[in-house]
């Protein structure tokens, strides 16, 4: 039987612990999207260069990350890097793992965004004497970012959920907090339902806010005249 009163009780009495988890979860998602999109951008641009080895390297990176489980990547970074002498806080290692993972997916999104910019835009920029760097910076990127932004928002929401995997390496994010509580109070179902509800509120609100932002950006485009 599910004890519904208990769900409420756990939420109220353990609220600070859950909020601590929420804070870490959101931090993870925020830094991962921020740094992951920068990494993705660099990778996406490198995949367009004429330097074949650089292109291959980036393709291998993207293929490898997309073809292996996130948990394995996390374990590799969080326990592997310290073995190689990289001494960093656990949280930092986790962010590194998530960024490496997210960067590969972001690279694909950004590549699609770059490809969506019409060829005529490049020709117009070149005909004005712009170098390929200037064309990228002032003409292609701003248009590509706009196309990619909604997908980046989705990535943020996805990482809120996916970062729960970090409970396996003992980072105090939301899932770990819930797991820790449950292993003391033995109300596994009720405690996990609280965690699930909190995750749902987070992703729901984030999705709504991002939708609002997107609509406003689109409106700024058409009504500014």
């Amino acid at each position, binding site marked *: 039987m599910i004890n519904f009163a208990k769900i409420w009780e756990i939420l109220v009495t353990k609220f600070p612990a859950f909020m601590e988890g929420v804070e870490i979860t959101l931090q993870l998602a925020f830094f991962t999207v921020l740094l992951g999109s920068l990494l993705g951008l660099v990778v996406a641009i490198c995949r367009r260069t004429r330097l074949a080895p650089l292109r291959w390297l980036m393709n291998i990176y993207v293929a490898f990350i997309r073809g292996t489980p996130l948990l394995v990547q996390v374990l590799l970074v969080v326990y592997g890097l310290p073995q190689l002498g990289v001494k960093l806080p656990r949280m930092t290692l986790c962010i590194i793992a998530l960024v490496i993972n997210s960067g590969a997916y972001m690279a694909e999104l950004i590549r699609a965004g770059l490809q969506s910019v019409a060829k005529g835009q490049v*020709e117009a920029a070149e005909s004005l*004497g712009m170098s390929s760097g200037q064309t990228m910076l002032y003409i292609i990127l701003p248009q590509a970012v706009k196309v990619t932004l909604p997908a980046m928002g989705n990535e943020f929401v996805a990482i809120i959920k996916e970062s729960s995997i970090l409970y396996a390496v003992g980072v105090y994010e939301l899932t770990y907090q819930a797991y820790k509580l449950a292993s003391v109070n033995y109300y596994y179902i009720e405690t996990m339902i609280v965690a699930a509800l909190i995750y749902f509120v987070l992703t729901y609100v984030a999705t709504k806010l991002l939708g609002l932002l997107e609509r406003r950006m689109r409106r700024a485009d058409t009504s500014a005249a």
Partner: protein
Amino acid sequence: MPTRQPLDSGSGQEILIQIEGLVKNFGKLEVLKGIDLNVRKGDVIVLIGPSGSGKSTLLRSINLLEKPTAGKIIFEGNDVTQAGKKELSLLRQRMGMVFQQFNLFPHLKVKDNITVAPIRVRNTPKEEAEAKARKLLERVGLIDKWDTWPQNLSGGQKQRAAIVRALAMDPDVMLFDEPTSALDPEMVGEVLDVMKNLAREGMTMLVVTHEMRFAREVGDYILFMDDGQIVEAGTPEQVFDHPQQKRTQDFLQKVL
């Protein structure tokens, strides 16, 4: 065998663009089969011919949007086909181009479309670039669109803004690639008027167009192209009223 004499627009003064033996292949397809042409300063040269005849490719080769397979394009003393990145940028800055699909930058307002290249490429101070942009927009009757997004302009307005964008770099020659082909008929006139004014002011122009009235009225020199070659060339009177070649006659009969 007689040496090949380049076609020469002849009416102007010094030669601005000298094209020698220009060949362009797309895979096995020969699009340009050895073009020789001299463009003199101040001349308006209109390229006509059936679609697929290579006239757009010829125009796009001049600023190296298409990389020629063989041949030379000497612009103001420099071979465009041999230019390094830096030099090519400098050469392109002196050649304005106007596209069939306008290719305005949709993420920039009209003013920024016009000033982005002067500011970023030529390091012109912002105030100076904007002052010049205002003056040019006024000349084409678009000053009220200064703060407008491109997507809120009509086709004719877009093309006039695109012309201004090219002029903002102070080019020595303007290349027009079917500038009115994507326009609704009622907007063709406003764009052609801007081009006529430019021609009157002495701008050197190469124009690919299907507007035969414009070609006759404004062109100093008409080139009829077919199958990758310049089939016939001369003044509008020569080409339109007394075409010598059968292919020219057939084409003109269809379009006039």
